[in-house]
Every structure is written in C-alpha cells, then in structure tokens.
C-alpha cells in the first residue's frame, strides 16, 4: 500500500519503521529537513520536506493515488486540516492523531464526519485504557483482550517458586483443573513456542491465554489474585493521567494526582471533581510519602521524563506499593528498566504504532476472505498474536488440528464459536464462522491460510 506519514516525531518514526518492515511504500513528510535526511538514510522510504497543509507539498509526496494518509504531528488542528486536504486531493483513507480532550464526544464525531477522517487516534486515551486494564488485573502482568473480551491474553514473569515450574505443560491443565494454554515462553533471549513436553523454569516470561472465568480460577489457585487496586497515585498531570483518572473514578477508585504545574492542577481539579489534586514536585520523595504513598495500592508514573518515571517507580516499589506502572518512551531505557525488574512499562509510541499497523492490515485485508481483527505484539514485539475471522471454507477448515501441516513457531491458541471460547486441542477443528487466535513468531501472516507449511 502507498502510505504517507506526516509528522515524524517519536510516534511517526516508530510508525515508519513498522510500516516499512511490513513492506509498504512509505513516504515521510515533515518540515524539518535534517530529520528527513536522517530518516531516509535509515529506512527505505521517500522523504519530502515541506508543510503538510501545503497542496504542492502534498502533491509532491504523491497524495494523489495514495491508499492512506497518516497525520501524527503535535498539533491536532494541523493533523485534521492536512487529513482533510489529503482526502480532497485523492488519498483513500486518512488517520489523524487528535488528542485534545476538548475534541471528544459529539464535536469529535462531527468533525470526523465533516472532514472525512477515517480513523482518529488518541494516543493518550489508548494508553489510559491499557493502564486501566493493568491496574484491574494482578501485578507483574500485561493483559490484552481478544474477541470482545471473550479471550484474555496475559504476559507474566514467573517467580522461582511459581507452582507452574518443573511440570510438563501437558499435565498443567489437570493439575490446576483450569482450561488454559501457555502459548509462548521467553527464556533469556530466546523465544519458544512450547510443546507438551516443555517445562517452565523460574525467571521465564510466559504468555498465557484463557477465557476470563478460567483465568480467574487459575490465578486464584496460583495465589496471584489479590484484592483489586482501589487507592491509586498518579504522578504527572498529563492527558493520559486525565483519561485514566476518569476511568478509575467511574469504577469507584480513589485517585491522587500530583503535578508541579499549578495551572495544570487547577484545570484537573475543575474537570475531575472527585480527584485529589496535589500541587508539588513529585521528584521529592518526602512529598510522595506525605501524600500517603505507603498506603496506596498502585503508583503510576506518567511524567514527560523517562528517567524520572523509572527512578520514582523503583522508589515506590521499595516502599511496598503493590503495583507500579511507568511510562517509558525510549526503547533502550525500557529494556534496561525491564531487566532491572520493573515489569509494567508502557510506551505511547509503540501503542499508537500498533493501532495504526493493525488498521493498515485490516484495510489491506478488507477485500479478502480472512480478516485480521486484532493484532497484538508480545515479548518485545517478537511474537504477534492475531485474530482472524473465518468467513468461508478454505484449506484450514474442517480438518482436525493435529492433522493440519502448520508451520513451525505458529500456534493456534483459541477458537471462538457461537460466542463460546474454546482452548483447542488436537482433535478440535476450525469451521466457518469461527474466530481464531493465532500466535506467530518470526512469520508475517496476512491470512489464515498462511499458517500452513
């Protein structure tokens, strides 16, 4: 597909990298010439330097006949305007980053309709949703939902004394009397798609699928599920913090937000009446303790500074706060922090990039029979979990799974039939109408039949 990305900041660059890796024809548009030349040196893309709301520049970037125009500059208005122009000049679809909370609800849907924007993306809201999921589930765990919440996939790091360790996977289901599947294991630097005889060790990072009820049962018998987080402290009054607080308030949690900018504090207390807003510098540990850090169930570091987020998260963890979440945008820092033991790290740009790549894949497959519904990257993006909708018969349907010649490093982790989730074994088969969740390491799947050798 021909894709134009304008605004090559953090999100734009991550997006460029993912889209070129997917094999699309990508053109980058930005008004910073130096940035453009660095990008064209590193990725196989065309660079155009100029203003994204200048028709000549848009024409030069080849907007006529392009399949998708993505505007992710720092300004909502610029994004909307350039998407509008691009659409009028001939782009088929447009994606705009719109993040100002004031452009939400009715005004957003009105503008979206009038300006013909195919997909508005709000990175902060996406992040807030993700953080919310994590807060409501056990610690040391990342949670992703498939098939409209019928399947959950969690990623967790095993402790040395975990009851899962030292038993072949094939006997695990019986031991816990729960229906679940361990679909990927990261040990050291290598990724395994495990078979029945695989044994887990302490320190392994595993990905596990189950339906919500079974997952609950399993986590309980593993002794991981404790009370839900109710008292939550958020550091940094960013837009993500605003959305997150809004969601938490609606479930009855008590939220404290700390920010050092007085104006931001005033605004937050105006828009979120139920929240305790503290004006102060969160970098001073004493302030955190004074405001009751030790009695909190969760601590979320959302300042604009990666290093500060990491350090204060370590501090909060040392003060026995049960759940610690940090926003870290730089990939290198995230890796280091993860190695040192911080398990819940979020990167805004990776999330946005995932959403748009998923959208691009959906666009690409919209004419095909097998649609990709959800895409989720796990284990640092080395494994992809995809959800396909099976519309009609093909080479993979109505054959027991154990007889299907499936490629190495690919696993069918779940089937959803008539709204009922099935964790498949060798005798199950795929029938038309199913939704199928597939896990792939090192393969790029475009349709369900790609899983066959």
């Amino acid at each position, binding site marked *: 597909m*021909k894709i134009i990305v304008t605004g090559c900041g953090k999100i734009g660059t991550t997006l460029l990298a993912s889209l*070129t890796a997917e094999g699309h*024809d*990508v*053109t980058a548009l930005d008004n910073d*010439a130096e940035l453009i030349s660095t990008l*064209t*040196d*590193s*990725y*196989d*893309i*065309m*660079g155009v330097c100029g203003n994204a709301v200048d028709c000549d520049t848009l*024409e030069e970037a080849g907007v006529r006949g392009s399949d998708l125009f993505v505007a992710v500059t720092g300004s909502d208005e610029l994004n909307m305007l350039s998407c509008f122009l691009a659409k009028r000049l001939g782009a088929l679809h447009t994606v705009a980053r719109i993040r100002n909370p004031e452009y939400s609800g009715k005004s957003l849907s009105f503008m979206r309709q009038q300006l013909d924007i195919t997909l508005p993306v709000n990175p902060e809201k996406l992040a807030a949703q993700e953080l919310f999921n994590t807060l409501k589930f056990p610690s040391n765990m990342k949670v992703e939902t498939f098939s409209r919440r019928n399947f959950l996939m969690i990623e967790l790091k095993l402790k040395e004394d975990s009851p899962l360790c030292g038993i072949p996977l094939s006997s695990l289901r019986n031991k816990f009397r729960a229906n679940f599947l361990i679909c990927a294991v990261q040990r050291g630097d290598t990724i395994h798609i495990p078979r029945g005889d695989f044994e887990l060790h302490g320190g392994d990072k595993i990905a596990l699928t189950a339906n919500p009820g079974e997952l609950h049962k399993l986590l309980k018998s593993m002794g991981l599920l404790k009370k839900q987080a109710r008292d939550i402290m958020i550091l940094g009054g960013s837009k993500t913090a605003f959305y997150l607080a809004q969601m938490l308030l609606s479930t009855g949690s008590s939220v404290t937000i700390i920010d050092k900018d007085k104006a931001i504090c005033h605004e937050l207390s105006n828009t979120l009446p139920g929240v305790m807003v503290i004006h102060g510098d969160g970098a001073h540990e004493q302030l955190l303790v004074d405001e009751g850090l030790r009695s909190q169930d969760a601590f979320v570091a959302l300042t604009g500074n990666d290093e500060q987020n990491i350090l204060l998260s370590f501090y909060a963890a040392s003060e026995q706060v049960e759940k610690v979440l940090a926003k870290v945008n730089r990939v290198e820092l995230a890796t280091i922090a993860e190695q040192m033991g911080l398990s819940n790290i979020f990167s805004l740009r990776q999330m946005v990039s995932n959403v748009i790549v998923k959208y691009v894949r959906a666009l690409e497959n919209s004419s095909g029979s097998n649609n990709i519904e959800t895409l989720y990257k796990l284990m640092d993006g080395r494994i992809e979990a995809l959800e396909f909708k099976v519309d009609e018969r093909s080479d993979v349907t109505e054959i027991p799974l154990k007889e299907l010649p499936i490629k190495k490093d690919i696993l069918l982790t779940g089937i959803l039939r008539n709204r009922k989730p099935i964790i498949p074994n060798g005798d199950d088969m795929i029938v038309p109408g199913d939704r199928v969740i597939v896990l792939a390491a090192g393969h790029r799947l475009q349709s369900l039949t790609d899983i066959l050798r």
Partner: protein
Amino acid sequence: MNRKMVFYTTGQILLLNALLLMLPLVVSFLYADGCWLPFLLTALISAALGGVLQLTCKPVSNDYYAKEGFVITALAWLTLSLVGALPFFLSRQIPSYVDAFFETVSGFTTTGASILTDVEAMSKSLLFWRSFTHWVGGMGILVLLVAVLPTVSGRTIHVLRAEMPGPTMGKLRPRLSDTAKILYLIYVVMTVIEIILLLFGGMPLFDSIVHSFGSAGTGGFGIKADSIAGYSNYCQWVITVFMFLFGVNFNLYFMLLIGRFRPALKSDELRAYVGIALTAMLLISVNIYPMYHNLADTLRLSAFQVSSIMTTTGYSTVNFDAWPDFSRTILIILMFIGASAGSTGGGLKVSRVVLLLRTVRREFQHMLHPRSIGSVKFEGKPVENATLVSVSTYFGLYMAIFALMLLLVSLEPDFDFTSNFSAVAACFNNIGPGLGLVGPALSYTNYSDFSKLVLSFGMLLGRLELYPILFLLNPSTWTKK
C-alpha cells in the same frame, strides 16, 4: 566496518558481471569472430570469484552505513574493471594487461579514452563489450543490482548515493528498488528509441546499437577511426540530440512521466544546462565559421561537439583540435562543467556550478553588508548551508586532485603541456579525447604504463565523484573495526 557485507556485495556484482558477459558471448557466436572463448573464460572466472565471495562472506548483519556504501561502490567498480579487462587481454587483441585495464576502466566510467590505434581491426564482440560497458557504467552497476535484487536493508541508499552523480540524490519512489527499476526503464526505452532512429538513418544494426550504447552512457567509444564523421548528417543530428538528452537529470524524465510538467520544465539545472550549451554552441559557431563558410555545416559541427563534450561523451565528427584556440578553450571549460546531476554524464555537474556561482554572489553581498543574511535558492527551495559547504569542498578537492594528477602525468618525456592538461581533464571528467597528442584523431597508447594507471584512477575518481575511491585507498578504513 561490516567487511563481510562489503565482500558479499562485491561477490554479487561479480555474479551479475558473469551474466552480463553472456551478451558479448552471443554476439561473438552471431558474427563467428572466434572470440567466444575469452568471454566464456572471463564469465567463468567472474562467476567463480563471485561464488567464493558469496559463500565465504555471508554477512552476519545487514547493517551498513555511509562508509560501507562508499567502500562497496569503489571496490565493486575496481573489481569489475579488473575482471572486465580479461576478454581484451585473453584474446590477445590488446596484448598488455595495463592497456586492457585502461580500456575497460575507460568503458565502465563512460570516458571513452582509448589506447587502440586501429579500432576497425578489433573483433565485433570485443567492440560490443567495450560499448556495452559504457551502457552499464552510465546508469551504474549497483543501481542495476538494486533493481534486480530485493532490498536487504533500508540503508542500501548509501550505495546508490555513492554511485549516482550529483550533490544530492532524490528518490523517485518510496522504495529504492522501485526507483532503480524506473531509472533503468527510462534508460532502456531511450536507448531503444535512439537505436531505432539511427536505423532509420541507414546506419547498420551493429553500429546503431554500439553508438546508442556510447551516447546513452555518455561514453564515446566509436568503432570507426573517424568516430561519427563518416555517417550521414541525419545520424549525426540524432546522436547530438540524444547525447544531450542523456545529459539531463533523469528525475526530470520521471516527473514528465507522472505528468508534473511545470516543475520539470522550470528546473534551474535544466535551464542552466540548456543555456550553457546554447551559448557555447553560438560562440564556437561564430569562431569556426571562417573555416567552413557554410552555416548548416558550422551549426552541425559545433552543436555535435558541444553536446558531445558537455555531456562528457567524447564522440567527434571533426578533428576539433584543428579549431582556433578560442573554441578549443571553450571545449576545455565545458569538460569541467559537465552534464546535469543524476544523468549519465560526468564532470563537475551543472548543478554544482550553479550552486558555486550563487554562493559566490551571496559571499559578495556578505562582504559588503556583513550583517546581511542571504539565502541561496535552487530549484525553488532554499539550499541548506551544509550542502553549500559540501559543494565548495568538492570543488576544492576536485581541483587539488586534478593538479596532482597533472603533476604525475607531466613526468612523461614526450608530451607537451597542452596534451597532458587535456588528457587529464578528459579522463578525470570522463570525456575521452583531448587536445594535441591525445586529440580525437589520436590515442592514449604512447603514454607509459604509469601514466595510464594514473589516468585510469582519474577516470574512476571522476565517475564515482572522488570520495568512494579516496575512502577505499585510505588505510584507516580497513584497520578500524
């Protein structure tokens, strides 16, 4: 440095070269000129060498940067010239390997400087190979490689940047391999059109193909002792026009193809290119009119020679060494200006000359008004200071290397200053024939082996725009990890 990547890519180039050698092999069978064995042997050697490099140097990582780009380009061209010289040497039609190397470098770099004294005595397949090297070298062997192979890394652009002439390189399409394919497509189509037009003019098929290769790559190897002079006026005009067209930036053709006529025709470089050519043609016409007393002949001769020298082709329809000094000097100046960036021609490139002159204008203004802020514009956009600095540096380095080579060549006992100066200028700028003892009617054969090697390196330096060869020869490129 990612050495394995460098040698691996060189291996790929050698395999590609083995494939390219099949063409002259076929020609050899068609004309039954008995030269098939040297071509077959060379192809086998090339394939074997390439295969060994491919097997032993499988790269661990695909990463490479500007440095690898430069070194790959330089090494590929050097290896290609060394191997490409074998058919001449093995067939014993050029008995000295240094001579054969000179001839092949001259071919690939699209120079067209020859050591042959009797070109008409050569076998057809060898003549074909000589001109075919022009065609391949004109657009670039690595561009060809990128066009036929899937891109392994987003950084492949560094190789193309090192091979494509001009101060900056613009992509035509987001994907590099698509860009390379489009460039070769335009190139092939234009070459075929020229061949057809020449056939209409009654030129034999073999001659049409060979001369089209020579003008497409702006090379200039002829197959007749008097170059193009023996062909009809129509053929001479066709070649004049096509040489000129191949000296235009290929990006402009792409813009025309996708219907962006306005910016293509308004291009600063195109206007300067046409302007310089017309002015030179007019001045020479006035200057040589007394020699011919015929307006049509005068225009044809001067247009052909200006087009041939400015695009750095080097065909001739007349012994221009016999022209007055004024005309000869204009031709020498045109040698240095050269063709457009992004074309198949050599020289400094019109865009660099324009940028240099505009920088000079800004500097003058700055001297008179030290607080003034002036910007240099090119193709409607302000040019960044870094680009201007690199153009000025390039010009300085160009002149310094020219002076050094002139000094080395002046060691020759039997040559005068005019001959040496024009020989170095003609090789460095990839033209071919010079003045005096290396004039269009004579050849480089009387130079010593040492001078021939100096001039060969001059041709490579000129074609690859200095830096790749300099980095290849710099020991620290190889000693540092």
